[in-house]
């Protein structure tokens, strides 16, 4: 197996085994979205109106939930030292770990979102744009989150600091992503939000691994 595939397989295997927390984000997403109608009430037009924003906020927080273990577990057991000395560049290690995080956290959210959107009475016309928006936006959540996770890797209970660091950076993704779905619900074209969302994701994917690797190097000293 090539190093890249070996690391990716290992990350996914660790995530789905006991204590890995792969289902955590998805379970949180389900709970928030299914509880929302109970809290807001059975007003169908109101639910349809808040559905895009609610789905996006829930997806964002679900992603955040599993981020603090992204590098911390490897740091605690010394794996990060050995990974840093391996033939794979640390930037590549970060990129693969972020990809594995997306595959085990972001992708399940994208798959579950259309079903949950039905329970919130999101118009059918908005479904494709919701899925497209989540597909484009969730990789950015993992990539930006990797930077926050790398900065807070040495801290125990660093989850609070991680949230404070990362959530402001999630704002553009949230605004453009929710905008795409709610415009489609109103029967409008996505407009500028779609390229902006894609641009935010590309920037995060391009810069994230380098920033996170630099932060990890400092934390390994």
């Amino acid at each position, binding site marked *: *197996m*090539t*190093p890249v*595939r*070996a*690391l990716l397989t*290992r990350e996914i*295997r*660790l995530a789905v*085994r*006991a*204590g*890995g927390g792969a289902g955590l984000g998805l379970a949180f997403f389900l709970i928030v979205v299914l509880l929302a109608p109970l809290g807001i009430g059975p007003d169908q037009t109101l639910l349809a109106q808040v559905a895009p924003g609610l789905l996006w906020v829930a997806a964002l927080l679900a992603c955040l939930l599993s981020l603090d273990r992204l590098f911390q577990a490897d740091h*605690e*057991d*010394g*794996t990060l*030292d*050995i*990974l*840093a*000395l*391996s*033939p*794979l560049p640390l930037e590549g290690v970060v990129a693969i770990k972020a990809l594995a995080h997306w595959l085990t956290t972001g992708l399940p959210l994208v798959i579950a979102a259309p079903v949950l959107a039905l329970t919130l009475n999101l118009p059918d016309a908005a479904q494709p744009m919701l899925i497209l928006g989540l597909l484009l936006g969730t990789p950015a959540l993992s990539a930006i989150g990797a930077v926050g996770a790398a900065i807070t890797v040495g801290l125990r209970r660093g989850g609070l600091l991680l949230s404070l660091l990362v959530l402001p950076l999630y704002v553009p993704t949230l605004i453009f992503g929710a905008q795409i779905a709610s415009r489609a619900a109103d029967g409008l074209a996505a407009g500028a939000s779609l390229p902006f969302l894609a641009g935010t994701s590309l920037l995060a994917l391009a810069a994230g691994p380098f920033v996170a690797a630099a932060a990890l190097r400092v934390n*390994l*000293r």
Partner: protein
Amino acid sequence: MDLIVNHLSCERGGRRILADVALRLAPGQGMALRGPNGVGKSTLIRALCGLIPSGGQATLGEFELGSDGWLDNIAYTGHRDAIKAALSVVENLQFWADLYGGNADAALERFDLSAIADRPAGLCSAGQKRRLGLARLALGNRRLWLLDEPTVSLDAQHTALFAGVLAQHLGQGGLAIIATHIDLGLDLHPHVLAPATASPSTESDPFLAGEFY
């Protein structure tokens, strides 16, 4: 491939841990790092890995410390074994074999781990985990082994087994620097680290130098 270290110095948190360390190792030579707790044995080993920034010169053959060639020629084991409890013994080592090259089954055999290859690593004893951590050394064909207290929690029989592996590595022209408090029964050159008394002439930490505004 000789290891030559000159004037190596290292600071952590504004405090000089290592000052003016000089080492020289020829192929086939091992060095036992000795010194009281906190004198900088682990720091020296991590500095030679390139994990901690250091001053001075260190070369391994034609490779400078920190270059890719240097990284391709060192193997490091630290206090922690880099083992995932959720993976089995063989899965743990196979991952490192995929990353570093080498044959995981042969390495397991070498460290007397074949019998427990399918056991979840979380259920292994401390000594078995340590052997699994050390088995990584037998994977790639790395010239310089940097070992930080490798025999902790090993029993007498497996300490001897590890000494045998180390002797074979040295016999094949490898080099090793071992921070250890015990006698492995090998002909290792002792190197006693003395506490660095001289404080840094120039403060490298901008906060401590008063340049934080």
